[in-house]
Every structure is written in structure tokens, then in C-alpha cells.
């Protein structure tokens, strides 16, 4: 794994360990979606999320998927700040229309900002083997199918 990939994995695990995301992985596997809020306004950039909402039943989403939403916070207001509230409001609306019920954490500390600014990343974690795989985003149907296969293995 590249240095950037390792850094990303450490950050995600740190976020999970900090308890900002809860839920038991399916067969010790979880998929983390790191999403820049900005892509939600762009249909071609966020269609893959709609595909996930369509393809994965709510119980699978709730158990095995995790989202971390990062957003622009130039004034560093952090949790409870105006930007943070806007991020939550827009994610709720976005998720509601796309049947996304996965647990979500907001990157109020801007830990992922540099990593996914202007885009997104999907990370597939196998906690048993310690394997991490990064899928390129937008995922498209192939990527969503790979996530489904990963979670049902």
C-alpha cells in the first residue's frame, strides 16, 4: 500500500476507533466511503452513491457501510459551526432521496479534507486479514458490484 493509502487507512481506523461510527462489520468486513460534500451537487460525480442506495439493502448498509463526509470549513468553525450544520443538512437531504441509510460521520476536524477534496474514495476493509483496498470513484456499476461481492464473500 502506498504511503498515502496507509495514511488514509490509519485516519479511517482512528475515526472508527474514536467511536464516531458504530455498527458491527459483516464478517469482519466494512466499506468506508469518504465523500467531499461538494460532489453531492454534481450528478455525474455522485450517481454511484445513488447506485449504492439502490443496490444494497438497508440492513447491509447499516451493518457494513460507513460514510465520512468532509466539507469546506475555511474559518475552522468545526462541529456546531455554520459549515458543519450545512453539511449535515445537505447530506440528510441527499441521503433521503437516494435511500442511503448508512451511518455517517462528519469530518469536523478536517482530517480527510486534503485527501478527498473535490472527490471521494471508497475503502474496503477486511479486518480479519488486515487487507485494505481502495476503489476509484466514481464507482459505476462495476464498483458497486465489487462492493456487494466483497460484503457477501
Amino acid at each position, binding site marked *: 500500500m502506498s504511503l498515502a493509502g496507509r495514511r488514509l487507512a490509519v485516519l479511517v481506523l482512528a475515526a472508527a476507533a474514536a467511536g464516531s461510527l458504530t455498527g458491527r462489520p459483516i464478517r469482519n468486513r466494512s466499506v468506508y466511503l469518504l465523500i467531499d460534500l461538494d460532489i453531492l451537487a454534481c450528478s455525474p460525480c455522485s450517481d454511484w452513491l445513488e447506485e449504492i442506495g439502490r443496490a444494497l439493502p438497508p440492513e447491509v448498509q447499516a451493518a457494513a457501510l460507513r460514510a465520512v463526509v468532509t466539507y469546506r470549513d475555511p474559518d475552522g468553525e468545526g462541529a456546531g459551526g*455554520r459549515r458543519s450544520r*450545512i453539511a449535515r443538512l445537505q447530506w440528510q437531504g441527499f441521503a433521503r432521496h437516494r435511500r442511503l441509510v448508512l451511518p455517517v460521520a462528519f469530518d469536523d476536524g478536517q482530517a480527510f479534507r486534503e485527501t478527498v477534496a473535490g472527490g471521494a474514495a471508497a475503502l474496503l476493509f477486511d479486518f480479519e486479514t488486515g487487507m485494505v483496498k481502495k476503489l476509484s470513484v466514481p464507482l459505476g456499476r462495476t464498483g458497486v458490484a465489487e462492493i456487494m461481492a466483497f460484503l457477501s464473500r
Partner: protein
Amino acid sequence: MGRKTRFGGGLLAWWMAASALVQAQTTVRLEEVLTIGGPDSDALLQWTGVATDGEGAIYVLDAMDFALKKFDSRGRLLGRTGRQGQGPGEFSTPRWLAFAGERVYAIDQPVFGLLVFDRNLAYQKTLPLPAMVDGVEARPGGGVAVVVSSYDSPGRILFFDPDGRPAGELRYMEKSEGFLLDKVTFIPASDGGIYLGYLFQDKVERWTLSGDRSWSRHLFGGKKSEMTTVEGFSLPRDTFVLDIALDSRGRIYVLGGKQAKNRGRDVVILDSSGGQVGALTLPEPSHCLHFDDRDYLYVRADQGVTLKKYRLVFP
């Protein structure tokens, strides 16, 4: 230093001082009169288009909520319509909005047509168009104008009468000058002209409906956009004019893009001849400007969860 040079230097100093004074005098102040939505409200999730009618109602397209919403003049929600989809009255990527002749015209970007609603938000029909639509505006006296986007046939604005029948066309670009370089924002004027602001070119222009360009001017020193290559396509990277609007006195408001000092916030005010008569800076970035018939200005704030209505105060 000769007398002529000293005189020239003095004149220059006077001119600079006078210019600064004029600039200071023509800076327009904004007084907020209404806010709709906000970070702690779910009234708007990410609005894209706004229109107003003569009774003070405010129509808003909400792209993230896939809805057309109607508010009264005090910002209370009167109704909403639409859902995600591509059927009649549904939206997938709602973008622009206009109110004309008792009808609300909405553009859903992938649709080659205009979605028509009545003022109670009941879907009426879709007017078919030959290409993807990049903007819609009400025409003084009724009907609408739309700018359509096509690589084969760039630079076209189509006019429709109040019954939705074709009523002419303006060609402002005969052949492609480069991918996306025909993208404009536009506004029809009550004197029969039409003003264009180019998204990726430093140009604001006035055209007559018969297809003559009355004037053209630069607002950013005549700069050219830097280009970038994406998947083999050479694309412009810098935005110049994000939107253009008119008040009832015929003043033209031009919202600057990336080339402006404050992107999405700096507005240059021109007279009908293209001369600068003022400027203002919005408190927050907006993607559009809209004036109602009482000259209140509507703009975006909070990344689209808030719509602000302002009164403009000229010195």
C-alpha cells in the same frame, strides 16, 4: 522634467483621485430584507434557480430536493412539487427557472425541453427543444427565451411566445470558437435588446433581436481563460461572468466568476451603453442574480441552503 510632463503627471494624479472618488460614490450598499432557509432549516437544501411573479411570490428550484417550491413574499412555504425522476413534472438535475405570463418555466438539465407549470405548481407540459438548455429567462411582454447548447450549432437563443410557440432566434456565434466558449448567461431587455455575459470569455455584449451586436466590452482586462485538457478535450478553466441581471431602470448587473477579485461576490453595474456606473460585493458567493419587478435582488448564500433578498441602496 518638462512643463508638459509635470502637467501630465498632475492630470494623472487628478484623474486617479477622481476615479477613486467616483468608485467610492458608486459602491452600492445592500440591505437584507428576507432570508429563506438556512443551516438550521430544511426549507432549501441546495437551490439553483429563482423566479418571482408580480404578486410577490418566490419560486425556487431545489436541486438536492428535486423540487420546485413556492414561497410567499414573507418567505413562508406555499407549496412544492416534483420528485426525483425523469417523468412528467419530475427532476433529475433541476437548474434554471423563469416566470412569465402566469407560467413557471423550469429546466432540468438532461431534458431537451422546458418544463411548464402553472403558478400553483401544477405541471402542464414540456415544450420540446432541439438541444440541451443552458438557461431560461422571461421576455418583457410575455414568453420566454432559452439558450441552447450544441457543438454543431453553437450560440443560439430561441424565443417563444406566451403560448409556447417559437418566435424567432438569435445567433450570437456563427461557428464554434472552442468547446464551451459559447456558454453565456443572458437577459432580455425591455427595449428589445438582449445582454450576454460569457462564462469562459471576458465579454459582456448587447445584441439586437435582428442579430446585430450593439457593443461588446471586457471587464477583466481582456484576459483569456487558461485551458486544461480532460480526456483529450481542451477545456477553458477560468470563469468570467457567472450571471447577468437587469433592474427596472435598465442597469445591467454582472456577477464575476473566478477572474473577479471575490469570486461569485463581485458585481459590476453597467448602464445600457456598457459603461460602468457602480459596483457591489455580495456578502457570500452566489451563482446567480435575480431582480423582481420591485428591484429587490435575490442571491444565494450558505452554499445553497439559504436564499437572500436584498434592497439595493445607491449613494
